């Protein structure tokens, strides 16, 4: 009978834990704290209630309940909060993690399996955490003769590019990380980086299966980029702007999917191809070429690539919502904030608590986020669905589909948009 770890010694295990703790503390004291001090020396500290908020004062105020909320308000106004937490990385990573779990459960149900079940008492809800722990504690094997710097950099670059894509998505009115005038062109520019990273990582691995997978990914992404770009032209023609927030604003009455259904369908199909999902998962075809361009990634590198893939999935679904489904627009379902709490405070028995700084979020922002998340989840569901339904298609079928049928449909879409504009249905003097 084989033993899982024959040379395992508890004392060695404890020693390694203590070693790691020591080095973390050591580096914290020698590098971390001076770095924090230097950063505090450089950045501008916010002024709240006429007082300069030093870190010392901030910690003092945090324990004072009447002053906590203004500090949180000041924090939420910073760029760092937007990048790291709400419309940016944290929000997207949360939705991506939910997507992974929902995908595994849903696919299992469609194939009459159970799916993740044991990890966590309720329906395997802690499976993702277990997977993360497994991936982070596995050995990273780099094949001999690989181009090491590129091979190490590729997963991180993949996640970072996906995050750059996420940063362009407006979630609620005013809640967007990078609100640039040429937002849609920015999206195309970011999408163009994915095949480059894929082919670089595939080339650097010095192995045959990743190489074939990388070339397939290059072909697929490159040939579906043109239908992707052309299918969104109709929306730009009707709105006359490339700013994603303004495109959402223009859909307050009708979402564009009502007028441009062909563009929406073509964009959805190209989205599946850019995300390398079934039926277009040729780059990772696990029954032909082991795992495609992911073959040589092991441990946390594979985990990072997966995270990047699902961030990209969220970003594409959100882009579909922003362009065709009306973004954050929807009926107001969030009740208004009760103003008695602001004027009179919360009364609980004999105690009345006055809480300045409320409400933390406006009604519009909560409502917008609710509708945006609802629509995004619906689109993500339709992206996940084909994986349980369709088989994989061949390379020549894929290229034929992308280059003849989808581009033809894109031109039809452009002429529909022109016709709507010149017939006076939309545009100046029309419905919107």
């Amino acid at each position, binding site marked *: 009978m084989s033993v899982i770890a024959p040379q395992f010694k508890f004392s060695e295990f404890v020693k390694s834990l203590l070693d790691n703790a020591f080095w973390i503390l050591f580096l914290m004291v020698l590098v971390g704290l001076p770095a924090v001090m230097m950063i505090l020396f450089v950045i501008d500290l916010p002024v709240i209630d006429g007082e300069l908020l030093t870190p010392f004062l901030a910690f003092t105020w945090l324990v004072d309940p009447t002053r906590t909320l203004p500090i949180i308000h000041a924090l939420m106004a910073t760029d760092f909060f937007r990048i790291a937490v709400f419309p940016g990385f944290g929000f997207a990573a949360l939705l991506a993690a939910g997507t992974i779990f929902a995908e595994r459960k849903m696919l299992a149900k469609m194939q009459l399996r159970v799916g993740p079940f044991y990890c966590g008492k309720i329906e395997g809800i802690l499976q993702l955490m277990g997977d993360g722990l497994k991936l982070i504690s596995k050995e990273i094997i780099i094949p001999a003769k690989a181009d090491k710097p590129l091979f190490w950099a590729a997963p991180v670059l993949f996640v970072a590019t996906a995050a750059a894509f996420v940063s362009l998505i407006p979630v609620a009115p005013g809640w967007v990380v990078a609100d640039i005038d040429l937002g849609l062109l920015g999206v195309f520019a970011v999408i163009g980086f994915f095949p480059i990273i894929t082919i670089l990582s595939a080339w650097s691995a010095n192995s045959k299966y990743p190489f074939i997978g990388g070339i397939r990914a290059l072909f697929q992404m490159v040939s579906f980029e043109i239908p992707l770009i052309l299918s969104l032209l109709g929306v730009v023609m009707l709105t006359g702007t*490339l700013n994603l927030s303004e495109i959402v604003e223009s859909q307050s009455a009708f979402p564009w999917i009502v007028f441009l259904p062909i563009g929406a369908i073509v964009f959805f199909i190209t989205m599946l191809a850019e995300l390398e999902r079934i039926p277009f998962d040729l780059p990772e075809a696990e029954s032909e070429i082991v795992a495609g361009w992911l073959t*040589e990634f092991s441990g946390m590198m594979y985990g990072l690539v997966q995270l990047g893939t699902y961030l990209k999935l969220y970003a594409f679904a959100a882009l579909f919502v922003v362009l065709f489904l009306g973004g954050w627009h929807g009926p107001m379902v969030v009740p208004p904030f009760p103003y008695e709490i602001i004027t009179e405070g919360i009364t609980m028995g004999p105690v009345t608590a006055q809480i300045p700084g409320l409400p933390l979020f406006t009604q519009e922002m909560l409502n917008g986020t609710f509708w945006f998340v609802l629509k995004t989840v619906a689109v993500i569901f339709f992206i996940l669905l084909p994986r349980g339904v369709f088989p994989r298609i061949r390379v020549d079928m894929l290229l034929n589909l992308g280059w003849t049928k989808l581009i033809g449909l894109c031109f039809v879409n452009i002429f529909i948009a022109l016709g709507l504009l010149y017939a006076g249905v939309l545009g100046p003097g029309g419905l919107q």
Partner: protein
Amino acid sequence: MFGFAIVAMAPALVISRMLSPRKRSNPVKFLPMECGQVPSGEGRTHFMMQYYPYILMFVIFDVMAIFLYAWGSALLYLPKSATLPMIGFLGIMFGAMSFALYQSGRRRIW
């Protein structure tokens, strides 16, 4: 956000490297994955994909698609007569694309 993701995600690799075991006992372990076989030949070979014309077409028509955005974003502010030359451009490009697709279907010349 690009920089934030790098700063936030690179430590994951570093921590993984610190936590995970590293055994350099077996040189076979570091060979490229070929389902248990010892691989023969180079990893970065010349691999014929047979669909090279599509890449050539991409170089041209991607630029065309981006040019169309310059027209599409300004369409609401242009006079209607300015659309006719654009239709002509689209027609020329459509013809060129169909000719290129016809040529790419003839595999013998590649």
